[in-house]
C-alpha cells in the first residue's frame, strides 16, 4: 500500500449541508472554551494515584490554573470524573452509579495504569480497566503518573472538549451500556483481552 493515499482519498468534499454557519462555529468555540477551562473534577480517588492527584492539586503543580479549582465531590456538580487508582470489583457498581449521577456534559479520565487496564493487579479482585464499566475519554498511563503526566492528560481532554461540535448530534447523548451484559465493551472482547493469562487451566503456565 505504501505511504501515499490513493488519489480519491486526497480530495475533501464539502457538501453544502455539512457546513456549519459562522454563528454556530463561534458559538461552539465560546461554549467549548468555557467548558474546557472550567472543568470541575470529581476525584474518584482510591489509591496511590489519588495521592499524586492531591499533589497535582497542591501548590507545586497547581491544577487550579487549568480551571480545576473546585474539586466537586458531589457528582451532580462535576464535569469530569477522574478515576485515580485501582478499582476492585466491589467498587464497580459504585463508580457506575456515580457516573450515572453525573449530568451531561461529562467526561472521564482514567488516571494510572490500574484504572486504565487493571495495572499490575491481574487477579480475581480488580476490574481490568474501568472502560468496561464507564466510557473513558482520556487514559493517563503511569504508576502513578507524574503530576506533569496528569496535567498532560487534562490538557488532552481540554483539546478534545474544544474540538466538539454542536452539529454533531449525538455527542452529548448518554452512552448506554449493552442492556443484556450491562457492559460498555462486548463480553467476548473483554474475555479475549484477558485470555493470554487468565481464567483457564493455563493460568500458571508461565508462573505469572
Amino acid at each position, binding site marked *: 500500500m505504501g505511504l501515499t493515499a490513493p488519489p480519491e482519498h486526497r480530495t475533501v468534499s464539502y457538501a453544502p449541508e455539512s457546513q456549519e454557519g459562522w454563528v454556530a462555529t463561534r458559538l461552539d468555540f465560546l461554549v467549548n472554551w468555557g467548558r474546557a477551562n472550567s472543568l470541575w473534577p470529581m476525584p474518584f480517588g*482510591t489509591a496511590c494515584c489519588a495521592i499524586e492527584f492531591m499533589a497535582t492539586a497542591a*501548590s507545586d503543580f497547581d491544577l487550579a490554573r487549568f480551571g480545576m479549582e473546585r474539586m466537586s465531590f458531589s457528582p451532580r456538580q462535576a464535569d469530569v470524573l477522574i478515576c485515580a487508582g485501582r478499582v*476492585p470489583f466491589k*467498587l464497580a457498581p459504585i463508580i457506575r452509579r*456515580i457516573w450515572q449521577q453525573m449530568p451531561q456534559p461529562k467526561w472521564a479520565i482514567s488516571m494510572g495504569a490500574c484504572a486504565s487496564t487493571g495495572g499490575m493487579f491481574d487477579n480475581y479482585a480488580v476490574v481490568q480497566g474501568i472502560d468496561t464499566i464507564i466510557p473513558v475519554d482520556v487514559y493517563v498511563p503511569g504508576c*502513578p503518573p507524574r503530576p506533569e503526566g496528569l496535567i498532560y492528560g487534562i490538557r488532552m481532554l481540554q483539546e478534545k472538549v474544544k474540538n466538539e461540535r454542536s452539529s454533531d448530534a449525538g455527542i452529548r447523548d448518554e452512552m448506554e451500556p449493552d442492556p443484556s451484559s450491562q457492559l460498555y465493551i462486548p463480553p467476548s472482547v473483554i474475555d479475549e483481552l484477558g485470555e493470554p493469562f487468565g481464567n483457564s487451566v493455563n493460568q500458571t503456565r508461565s508462573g505469572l
Partner: protein
Amino acid sequence: MSKRTVEVELSTSGLDAQGRPQRIPLVTNDGGAAVALQPPPGLEPDLEGEHMLINIGPQHPATHGVLRLVLELDGETVVRCIPHIGYLHCGFEKIGEYRQYNQIICWTDREDYLNSIGNNVAFALGAERLFGIEITERCKVLRVIASELSRIMSHLVWLGTFCIDIGAFTPFLWAFQRREEIYRLIEKWVGARLTTSATRVGGMAADIPSGWMDGLRQFIRTFPHTLDEIDRVLTRNAIWVGRTVGLGVMTPDEAINWGLSGPMLRASGVDYDVRKDFPYLDYETYDFEVPVGTNGDVYDRYLVRFEELRQSLRILQQAADRLPDGPVNIDDPRVILPPKSKATSEMESMIHHFKVVMEGPRPPIGESYVAVESPKGEKGYYMVSDGTAKPVRWRIRPPSFVNLAAIPKMVEGHLLSDVIAINASIDIVMGEIDR
C-alpha cells in the same frame, strides 16, 4: 433499640420565651463520652424521634479512601456505627504467592502508599530474616533514613487531610509543599516519587547519589520552620482544641485489647513503640523519644503525631551524621544482583544475574514475622517459605485495619461532625486495610 415515629403531640412549642429554639446541651461524662443533659421539666420527657440511618461513602471526600460508614443517628448523635471495608481489596496476598521475593517489593509500595519506602524496608527486613541474611552497616543507616523520611511523608499527609476534615485548608498546602521536597530527594535516589521499590533482599536498589546528603541536610534544616508554623496555627487554636478535645477516647486497657498500635495506642497512654521495644535496624543506638499521650482523645493523637515529626528529624540528623562508607548490598551473588559492570563483563556474574532475575533467590524452609513501626502502627509481614522462590503465604498485618475496627466503639455518643474528626485521627490508608 427502640424506634418511634414522630407523631406525638408536642407539649411545648420548642421555643423559649424569646422565640428562640430550645437546645439540648451535651456535656462530657466521666468516661469522656458526650451525653445529653436530662431535658428540663416541661419538655416531653421521652420525646425520642425516629433513628435515622445514613450512609457515608464509599465515595466521600472525608473518608480517607473508599470507606463506607453506616451511622444510626438519633438527631445529630451517633447511636451506632457500622463500617464497611473491602472496596479497595486487590488481592495482594494472593498475588504474593505467585511472585518472587524481589518482585513482591513492588507490591509493598502500593499497599500503604503513604509509607511506600517504609513498607519496602519492612518487607526487606522480613525477607532477610527468612533468608538468614545480615545486611551491611551502610544499608542499615540508609534504611533508617528512608523509614524516617517515609514517616514524615505519611504524617504530613495525615496532617493535611486531618486539617481539611476539621476545616482548615492552608496547612494542607504547606504540608504538601514540604512533601514535594522529600519527593525530589527520593526521586534523586531511586527514581520514583511515590512507588519507590527502593529495597531489595540483601540491600537497596541503589546507593544514594553524590550530593544527596546535602539535600537531606537542607531539608532537616528547613523543615522545623514549617512545623513551627503549623504549630502556631493549630495547637492552641480555640477552634481546633474545641473540635478535638474529648473525642473518641480509648482507655489504655481498651486500646490494648482492641489491638490498636502506633500513635492511636500511644495517645491512650501505652508506651509501646516497636522501635523501642522490639528494635530493628539498630534503633536502640539512636537517641530519640517516643511521645505518649494521657487522654486518649483526638487532640492527643494530633499532639503525638506532631511530636513524632520532630523526633523523626532528630533521628534523621543522627543517621545523616553516622552514615558509614562501604557497600550497600551484601556480597552474596545467590541473593542479590551483582553490579552491572561486572554482570556485563564477567561470565560468572552474568550467570548469577540471570539466575537471580529468572528464578529468584530461594530461602530455606521456614517462616518469619517481622514488625516495624510504620506511621500507622505496628506493621508486620509474615512470610512462610517452602524452599521455593515464591512464598507459600505472604501475610500483611495491617495496622490501619485493626485500628479502624475500633471506630464503632469510639464514635458512639458523639455528633456527626465528630465522626469525621475521629475517623481522620485514626490515620487510615485503605490500601493497607483492604490489601
